[in-house]
């Protein structure tokens, strides 16, 4: 088994080896990832920085169980993601992972609370939907529909939805991309709180270099590969970020 061939480190959330992703074939092939090796410890906030097309979203999708690499392996703790079939990946997403997207992806036909319940209904060990909304400061607005919420509020509902299942990992793809800076900082504050209180590993993909200052670890992407990995000795509070 591949699992036994990889040295186990109980403190690691993710290990990736030789991850390659190629779209298309022959002359038109696009190499989104070119043999990425990396490890992400549990409980950290990790920011993936890099220009468009550098491969950071592709990596996030593979680690999140939304996509498969062309080559290489990826492990979540001791489970090999790259060996999983479609159904196992669905269960992986359902039980271990939360997602936050740039455009929130809320269900317009469900209220804030119901959007959260959408997840708690199927999760193994969920928290109360109301509690999840209180965590993002939206306890009062739980009966509102997405159309009645501002962009920042919608993103906070999306975060509440993502954390309500108490996932081990939270994936955030440009979570502040559609928000102004004040609202963006408020959303990052929520992520930081989740990390502090629940110990959730958080991966944030962003263009905004300033966000890096709130991370434990920053992975710089360029041309489908990791250019540099840096660690912050001290993390800034989201309120201190400037962009």
């Amino acid at each position, binding site marked *: 088994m591949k699992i036994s061939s990889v040295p186990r480190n109980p403190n690691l959330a993710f290990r990736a080896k030789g991850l390659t992703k190629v779209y298309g074939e022959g002359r038109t092939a696009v190499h989104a990832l070119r043999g990425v090796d990396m490890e992400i410890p549990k409980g950290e906030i990790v920011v993936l920085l890099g220009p468009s097309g550098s491969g950071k979203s592709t990596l996030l*999708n593979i680690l*999140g169980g*939304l*996509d498969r690499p062309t080559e290489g392996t990826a492990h979540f703790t001791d489970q090999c993601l790259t060996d999983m079939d*479609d*159904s196992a990946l*669905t*269960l992986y*997403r*359902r*039980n271990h*992972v939360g*997602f936050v*997207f740039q*455009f929130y*992806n*809320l*269900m*317009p*036909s*469900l*209220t804030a609370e*119901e*959007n959260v*319940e*959408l*997840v708690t*209904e*199927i*999760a193994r060990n969920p928290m109360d939907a109301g509690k999840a909304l209180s965590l993002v400061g939206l306890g009062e607005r739980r*009966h*509102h*529909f*997405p*159309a*009645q919420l501002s962009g920042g509020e*919608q993103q906070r509902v999306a975060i509440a*939805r993502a954390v309500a299942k108490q996932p081990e990992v939270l994936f955030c793809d440009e979570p502040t991309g559609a928000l102004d800076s004040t609202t963006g900082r408020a959303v990052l504050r929520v992520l930081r709180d989740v990390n502090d209180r629940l110990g959730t590993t958080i991966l944030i993909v962003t263009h905004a270099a300033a966000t890096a200052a709130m991370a434990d670890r920053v992975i710089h992407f360029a041309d489908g590969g990791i250019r540099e990995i840096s660690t912050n000795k001290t993390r800034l509070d989201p309120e201190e970020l400037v962009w």
Partner: protein
Amino acid sequence: MSPLDKKLWRDLRRVKGQAAAIGLVIALGVMMQVMMSGLVHSLQETRAEYYERYRLADIFAPVLRAPNSVTPQLAAIEGVSRVETRVTGMVLIDIPSRDLPVMGRAISLPPGGDPGLNAIYMSTGRMFDAAHPEEIVLLDSFAEANGLKAGDNLVATINGAQRQYRIVGTARSPEYLYTTAPGELVPDDARFGVIWMNRDALAAAYDMVGAFSEALFAINRDATQASVLQEIDRVLKPYGGGGAYGLEDQYSNRFVSEEMSGLEVSASGVPPFFLAVAAFLLYIVISRMVQAEREEIGLMKAFGYRNREVGWHYMKMVLVIAIGGAIAGCLIGIGTGRAMINLYTMYFKFPFLVFVLDPTSFVSGVSVSILSASIGGLFVMRRIFRMAPADAMRPPAPADYSAAGQIGAWFAKYLDQPSRMVLRRVTRQPGRMMGAVLGIAAGMALTLSMITIYAGFERTLDLTFTVVDRSDVTVGFARPVGEDAIFALRRIPGVEVVEPTRAVGAVLRNGRFSHQGAVTGLTVAPELIRAIDSDYSTIEMPESGIVLAKELADLLDIKPGEMLAVEVMGGRQPVVDVPVVAIAQSLLGAPAYMGMEALNRALGEPGLASGAYLKIDKAFEQEIFAALRDMPMIAGVSLKSEMRTAFETLMNQGAGATRYVMGLVAFIITFGIVYNAARVAQAERARDLASLRVIGFHRGETAFVLLGELAVVTLLALPVGSMIGHYMSFAVAEGFSTELYQIPSLFLPESHGYSALVVIAAALFSGWLVKRDLDRADITTALKTRE
């Protein structure tokens, strides 16, 4: 090609599946229009051409025996352009394969075989040789139906003398497109024959040397037929004439006209429903498709394109689909029309075909498609144009469901979140849902009305041959007979019931309304042949008074209690005024019934019967036929089973035949609508569905949100479709009814059930197709795709 046009082609390629589905539906709508009107036009043209080429007469004047010297007098009548006289008479033809001889008509032709009027078309063999009086030409359809061909011998009884004749050829005639056994309504090729032979030979057989028994007339275009008829009757009266009639009353022509007008009514009455349903669908789908282009529209506006330019760009896309579908419809319509016309040419026995197309059907089909697609496209574009480009470019704000409010606590207990999504979407976008519901309902209505029509045809057969007529055999007498003949029938072993009838030709008049038909005299409480009311119970024949079929009463605009004038065309030709006492239900023909005694009294011929209905023991069938064959007073015998088969053939090959094509088209349209509804919903929800998958919902759970919506819409559409279909079927039934038979629109629960099953099956299949695509979809790209 401009970049915009390139974009257009690529966009079309992207949506090709859906474009094809939309195009197909509109194509079928247009096809029906083109096919049916082309069919009717071609048949009418062909008939006109056939009549003209073979010089079918305008006026027919039968006479007992008129000397040839009268002919110049007839030719001199004002308005007459040509006269042709001939000898005709009844014959009995022995067919080896049949137990009973069949009736026929012998008609004389001049020695060369080419008369001035009513020429014949030789289909096989040759014309008779005037030097051989035993040579005859036989009606093509009769020969074929009885397995006879040129070279065969034929035994026939003419004027009491049985002789053997030799068939030298078979022919078609515009005068005998349809033949019917005497006393029957429904044509049957096998049981009425026409023999053409040399005039001298036939005149000798009928003792008509130097005389004629029928005069044929062609009249000038500007002549008034009525006055010509009057004049002919005046001239021929002394020779036993007086019953001249126009082509419109000639039996075969009348039947062909009725069949064609039946087709014409179906052609003008039914396809518009198909086109309307297709157009409605086109409108809905196009408007949703343009809605999906909103971001691109915003982008183009941001580049500085004017509304007009953007609008035209998208209209081109809409028009390509609509016009493409319509043109495909025209082409398929021409193809199917041609195929159907070939079938009908055989059915009507035309020797050739004049194929014409009706340009208006193309124009109406294409313009309705363009119009409904344009309206759908423009309507949505106007809304998008009102937005600032920046707003349009952003992904749309989440649809506002706030009006949906909360789901009650009680309800909430039973509804999980996916179910709530389905419920809110259905209840909170009522306009959109209503469009989908109505679309599917319209499709179901089409299917339902076609299924209802099928049942209507069955009912017509059933009512005619098991409820109204319960006999096994019908006997026609050569001339009216007395009681003793009826007793003779009763004495035949195996004959269980004999019911005499008296039928006479008559003109029924109520004020300015009149109808030329027949009055049938029935016994007081008939068992075998009955007039029935709407509850199917027997109407007892009154002492005096007349019972009219509903169609006939409607035609004459008369109600029970009112007086009707009956001008009898037999015996001493009396005119009697009788009260209408009851209205009978009949789906075949338009019969009028009187008590037999009352009718005989009016005729001054008490105790006579012109025919009888028999119920027999099937075990004695052969013996009974042998006995009937030996009875000299019997002119014809019809088996009900043969009559039923003939009627079935008529309904399945005549105007009614189109119902099968229409039924198939209705089914395809219904499927197309349901499939489109599913596809559109899928496109609109791609993002939501992908989000659900990302969150960790399995494929089945995700599909539930989409298919649940389709299920709800389909279920809502069932009662609506049931209702629309119920009303639509009245109009469609009207379209399929001809003057000869009526097709009722029946409310049958099973018809509604079947059409619901069709819709459900279409929904299940569409759901399966959509689900298959959902399963294949890549969630990450689906998340990024624009809506």
